C-alpha cells in the first residue's frame, strides 16, 4: 500500500505556495523563483480502477459543483463528457484483447494533465488568467478569465470547458487550494482502491515502476507509465496496462503536443504581424518625408475650368 498524504493539522497554517512561486503566467512574463518547489504529481493506475466514480463525486463535493441530471444512453460514462462542472470523468472502454482473448474493461479517469508545457496557458490572451506554479500545478484564475475559449484550442487533451452560465473556462485545479495547506487532491482522498495516489513526481514515478513490475509479472508485457514528453511531461500520470496503445483508453493521445497551428499563431504570427503593421506605418511616414504631399496645382484647377466651360 502506498502511504497516503496524512491529514494535516487543523490549526491555521501559511499557504505552501502562492504568487511568488509562479513559473508561468498567461500573457505576461514572470521572474521565475530562484528555487523551484518539489514537483508534485497525481498517479492514476488504470489497472486498479473499479469505476466507482468516488473521485467524480469527491471532485464535485470539494469544489462545490453540481452537475445536471443527465440521460442514460447505454454507457457508464456519466455525464457523457467533461463539462464546466465535471472536472474529472470516468471514461469506460470495452477492449477486446486479441492476444489473450480477454475482454478488458479499461476505465480511465479523464481530466487536466497539468502539463509541464501547458498549451492552454500559451494560448491564453488574458494576463494572469492561467498560471503555473513551480510545483507543477496549472490553475485558472476565473476573475481574470475573459471566456474567449483560446485555452480549449491550446490544450492537446481537450480538457477545458466554457461554462454556459458565466462564460468562463473551467478544469481540474489539482485541488490547488487543498495542496496549499498540505492536503492531497479530493479525488485521491476518496479513491477506495488507491488507483489514484498523490505525492512528489519522483515518488509517483517510483510507485509507478513498482506497479508496472507487478503488471508485467501478471502478463501485461506492455504495461508502462504515461508521462508524455511532447508536453514536457505531466503532473497527472497514468499507469496503463497497454502503454504502447494509449489511444485505446477512450482516445488518450499517443504522443500529445501543443498543435503547431497554436505554436505558429502564438509565436511567429504575433511578432511578424506587429512588425508588418509597424513597417507599413513607417513606410507612410518615410514616403511623406521623401516624396511629400501630392497637391492639386492651380494649373489643374484651370484645366478643369477650361474643360467645364463649354457647359456653362
Amino acid at each position: 500500500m502506498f502511504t497516503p498524504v496524512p491529514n494535516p493539522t487543523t490549526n491555521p497554517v501559511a499557504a505552501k505556495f502562492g504568487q511568488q512561486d509562479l513559473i508561468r503566467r498567461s500573457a505576461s512574463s514572470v521572474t521565475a523563483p530562484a528555487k523551484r518547489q518539489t514537483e508534485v504529481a497525481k498517479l492514476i493506475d488504470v489497472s486498479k480502477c473499479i469505476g466507482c466514480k468516488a473521485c467524480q463525486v469527491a471532485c464535485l463535493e470539494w469544489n462545490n459543483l453540481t452537475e445536471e441530471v443527465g440521460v442514460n444512453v447505454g454507457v457508464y460514462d456519466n455525464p457523457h463528457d467533461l463539462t464546466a462542472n465535471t472536472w474529472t470523468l470516468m471514461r469506460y472502454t470495452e477492449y477486446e484483447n486479441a492476444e489473450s482473448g480477454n475482454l478488458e474493461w479499461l476505465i480511465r479517469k479523464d481530466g487536466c494533465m497539468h502539463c509541464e508545457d501547458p498549451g492552454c496557458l500559451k494560448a491564453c490572451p488574458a494576463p494572469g488568467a492561467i498560471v503555473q506554479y513551480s510545483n507543477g500545478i496549472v490553475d485558472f484564475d476565473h476573475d481574470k478569465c475573459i471566456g474567449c475559449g483560446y485555452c480549449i484550442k491550446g490544450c492537446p487533451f481537450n480538457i477545458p470547458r466554457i461554462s454556459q452560465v458565466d462564460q468562463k473556462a473551467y478544469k481540474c485545479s489539482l485541488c490547488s487550494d487543498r495542496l496549499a495547506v498540505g492536503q492531497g487532491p479530493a479525488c485521491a482522498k476518496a479513491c477506495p482502491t488507491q488507483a489514484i495516489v498523490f505525492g512528489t513526481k519522483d515518488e509517483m514515478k517510483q510507485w509507478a515502476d513498482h506497479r508496472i513490475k507487478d503488471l508485467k509479472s501478471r502478463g501485461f508485457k506492455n504495461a508502462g507509465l504515461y508521462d508524455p514528453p511532447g508536453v514536457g511531461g505531466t503532473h497527472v500520470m497514468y499507469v496503463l496496462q497497454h502503454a504502447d496503445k494509449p489511444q485505446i483508453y477512450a482516445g488518450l493521445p499517443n504522443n500529445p503536443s501543443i498543435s503547431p497551428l497554436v505554436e505558429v499563431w502564438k509565436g511567429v504570427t504575433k511578432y511578424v504581424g506587429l512588425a508588418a503593421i509597424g513597417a507599413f506605418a513607417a513606410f507612410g511616414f518615410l514616403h511623406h518625408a521623401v516624396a511629400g504631399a501630392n497637391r492639386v496645382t492651380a494649373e489643374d484647377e484651370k484645366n478643369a475650368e477650361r474643360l467645364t466651360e463649354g457647359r456653362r
Partner: protein
Amino acid sequence: MSKSEVDAGDGVHPGKPVIVDRYTAAARINHWITAISLVLLALSGLALFTPYLYFLTGLFGGGQLTRIIHPWIGVVLFLSFMGLFFRFFRLNLWERTDSVWMGRLRDVLANEENKLPEVGKYNAGQKMVFWSMSLFILVLITSGVVIWDQYFGNYFTIEQKRIAVLIHSVTAIVAICVWIVHVYAAIWVRGTIGAMTRGKVTGGWAWRHHRRWLKDLVTGKH
C-alpha cells in the same frame, strides 16, 4: 468605347473652382459606419492578439466585454461593407489600363501623375484596396464565426477552430496593413478627404487624379 465612369449621384458644378460631387450622403454614411467598425475591430482584435496590447481592452470595458463585443462589431462591419461592395464594385472592375498604372508604381509614388494613363473614378491602387478588403472581410467573418464560441462553439471541431483562429489573425493583420495604405493615401493625396466628409472634391483634384471620370462627367457620358 469604354464604359462610363460615372456613378449615380456624381455631378459637376462649373465655377471657380469647379466643384465635383463624388460621394452621396448615403455612401458617406455607409463608409463611416464601416470605418468606425473597422477601427473598433482592429483595436479590440489587437487587444486579444498580443499581450502587449491587452490594455486596449480597457477601451471596451475590460476583457470579457471586449470578447463579447468584438464579434458583434464584426457583424456590423460585414453588413455595412456589403453595402459598400454593391455600391462600388462596378467601377472597381479591373481594366487593362489598371495594369499599366500598377506597372508604373514608381511614378505614382513620385507624384509624377502626368506619366500615367488617365484614370476613371478609381485608380488601380484604390481597386486593389477595394478587392483585397472584400476578400479579407469575407475570410474574417467566416473564420470569425468558427471561433465565436458563445454561439457556434458546438458546430466546429477544435482542430477547425485552431485553423480558423490562425487564419483570422493573419488575415486581420494583412487587412490592417491595407487599411494603413488606404488612410495614408487619403492623407498623402491632398484634397481627397473632402470626398468622404462633404462628398465633394475640386475640379482640379478630379483633373489631376481621375481625369477620365471628370471627362465622362463633363461630356455627360452614361
